[in-house]
């Protein structure tokens, strides 16, 4: 809360700095030398000089203060407490922080805890003052410095440009580093898992039976990936069998036949399908589609489980229709009119033209769209959690329950978890596998789509 006020004050200060900058810049004009930059750029430059250094201090401070305070507090603990490790240390720190913030703890705090909290509070107070003071000094110094530098020859426009470029680079670096961080931490934990289970047993095992860690540490259970992977593949194939024909026909209708107003109305409506939360789809599958398939199966003498690969696949197919229809629609519309004219001019009918010229020309793009939809289906979780029946057994019957990689990750990470056991760590290995699959699908899809784009240049 307090931090927000601080940031807002800084922003207001930057606003004033901007005003000062433009005002001063205008006073510089007075007929004499030609200005290199316009007042806007001078204003922006002054504002940046005022705001950026202070903000950097603020960021660094917020990043490092907790760590420094923590070690300061820990150093002050009584000697018998110094040996605390891991979990207990965390609990202690949390208690100290609660007391210091005035939130309190449920039981009577010990004397050393109170002392530590007192120390933490006073350190926090002075730290904050120091931070605000240094920010203020920096802001004022920056402002004065920048105002004094303003001159007609100053290349403020280029400086502002450079600062913005640096800002953009910093932001994208953060995004990229985050991605790399996620992948690395997953790899690390997965390697940890492979210390318990042989990778060959994991990637090629046909039985999934991971025992619960609480039922005795003696037996490890079996961590065979194949039943889960097969479940994922089966559900995704069913989903694509539903989504590809429907989505493609929709796209062709939208792009080639629908009059403008129908297209304007129907396209957003179809795209809403992609925006429905997947838990709602799961729910829909569980209470409507599953029972419907079950009773429909009874009517024709088929034993269809209410929660099955079929149910999950069909509902997931509905979910990914807009991915296919929307992307394919764009791709079909991109096929040049000259192609259609060429075909029509030879005496082809509209549907012949679509089948023999437009769709083949759009095919690579459509394949790309399907692959993107497939990677979406493979990573989908909520629908399969609710509707696939969670039965990690290798079989080929879509009318039976299955389990998928995503469902299993959920299962392994809910309830009591202990991140030292393979039962939990396997989630990272599964996640990494999933990530590798969807990543390669996306890369292939993007490659195909890009290649297609080049075709008409």
């Amino acid at each position, binding site marked *: 809360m307090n931090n927000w006020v601080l940031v807002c004050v800084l922003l207001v200060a930057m606003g004033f700095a901007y005003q000062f900058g433009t005002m001063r810049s205008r006073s510089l004009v007075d007929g004499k030398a030609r200005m290199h930059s316009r007042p806007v750029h001078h204003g922006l430059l002054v504002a940046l000089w005022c705001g950026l250094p202070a903000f950097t201090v603020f960021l660094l401070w917020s990043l490092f203060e907790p760590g420094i305070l923590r070690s300061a507090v820990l150093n002050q603990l009584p000697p018998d407490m110094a040996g605390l490790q891991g979990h207990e240390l965390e609990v202690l720190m949390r208690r100290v922080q609660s007391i210091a913030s005035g939130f309190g703890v449920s039981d009577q705090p010990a004397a050393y805890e109170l002392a530590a909290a007192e120390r933490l509070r006073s350190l926090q107070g002075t730290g904050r003052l120091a931070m605000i003071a240094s920010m203020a000094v920096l802001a004022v110094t920056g402002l004065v410095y920048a105002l004094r530098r303003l001159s007609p020859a100053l290349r403020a426009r280029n400086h502002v440009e450079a600062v913005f470029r640096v800002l953009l680079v910093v932001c994208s670096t953060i995004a990229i580093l985050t991605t790399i961080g996620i992948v690395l931490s997953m790899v690390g934990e997965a390697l940890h898992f492979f210390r318990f289970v042989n990778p060959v047993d994991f990637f090629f095992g046909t039985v999934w039976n991971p025992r619960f860690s609480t039922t005795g540490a003696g037996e490890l259970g079996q961590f065979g990936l194949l039943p889960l992977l097969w479940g994922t593949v089966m559900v995704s194939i069913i989903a694509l069998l539903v989504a590809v024909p429907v989505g493609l026909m929709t796209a062709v209708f939208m792009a080639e036949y629908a009059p403008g107003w129908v297209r304007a109305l129907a396209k957003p409506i179809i795209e809403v399908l992609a925006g429905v939360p997947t838990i709602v789809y799961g729910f829909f599958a569980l209470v409507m589609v599953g029972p419907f398939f079950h009773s429909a199966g009874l009517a024709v003498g088929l034993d269809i489980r209410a929660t099955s690969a079929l149910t999950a696949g069909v509902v997931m197919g509905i979910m990914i229709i807009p991915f296919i229809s929307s992307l394919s629609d764009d791709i079909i519309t991109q096929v040049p009119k000259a192609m259609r004219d*060429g075909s029509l*001019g*030879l005496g082809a009918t509209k549907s012949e033209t679509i089948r023999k010229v437009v769709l083949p020309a759009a095919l690579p793009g459509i394949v790309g769209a399907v692959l993107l939809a497939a990677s979406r289906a493979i990573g989908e979780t909520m629908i399969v959690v609710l509707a696939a029946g969670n039965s990690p057994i290798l079989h080929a019957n879509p009318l039976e329950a299955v389990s998928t990689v995503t469902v299993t990750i959920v299962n392994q990470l809910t309830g009591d978890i202990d991140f030292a056991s393979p039962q939990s760590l396997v989630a990272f290995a599964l996640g990494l596998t999933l990530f590798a699959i969807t990543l390669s699908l996306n890369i292939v899809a993007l490659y195909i789509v890009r290649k297609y784009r080049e*075709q008409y240049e």
Partner: protein
Amino acid sequence: MENDVMRASLASAEAAQNNHTPELKMSARDVRVFYGESEALHGVDLDIYANEVLAFIGPSGCGKSTFLRCLNRMNDTIDGCRVTGRIELDGEDIYDRRLDVVLLRARVGMVFQKPNPFPKSIYENIAYGPRLHGLAESRAELDEIVQRSLTRAGLWDEVKDRLDQPGTGLSGGQQQRLCIARAIAVSPEVILMDEPCSALDPIATAKVEQLITELSESYTIVIVTHNMQQAARISKRTAFFHLGNLVEVDETTKIFTTPSDSRTEDYITGRFG
């Protein structure tokens, strides 16, 4: 002796053909075209004779392409475009409800301004039309049609070794000749060309012009061109359009030397355009 008789009879037959008034292929009467509410063509009357090359010239936006597209009903594919008046092909009204537009376009083929080969192989580009209309009974017959069309378009020697490669990989001029071959493959009677050389370099243009001259022996050709030298080189008659009107149509030499309308004269002497 016998030879002389033959020669004499041939000569007289040729003379008879030359004196014979040319056979009417298409005729347009009071053709008006509307894009939405605005009228782009204001009543065009024009006759097109069999086996002639007829050129359309005029400043851009005057309705040359619009009129050309009326002749094989390509305007049907444009939303909001409406055509009134009467256009006949061999005496039949082509806007008659009973007429099959698909068959019409097989009889009146079209070549476009920018070469637009399909993103398929060279062979498939040519075979496309014959397949649609069932012109070949067997693969051998289809091969035959492909070879004949490519030969007529003067492209066979250049592509015979790479029929299975994409048509989009050819040079611009080759692509345009491929499109002409594609149009010939369905054996049309009339070929419409809308500025077929405007995207080509001078050498490719010369090749296409020569091709047009050769083709006029067996087809009726209507060509829109921006290039007046081109019209003068290849066409027998020329029609001058201006602001949605057909100003005059006459022998090409007459149009370029003694036009009867002052607007035509202004245009060909470069006073506007």
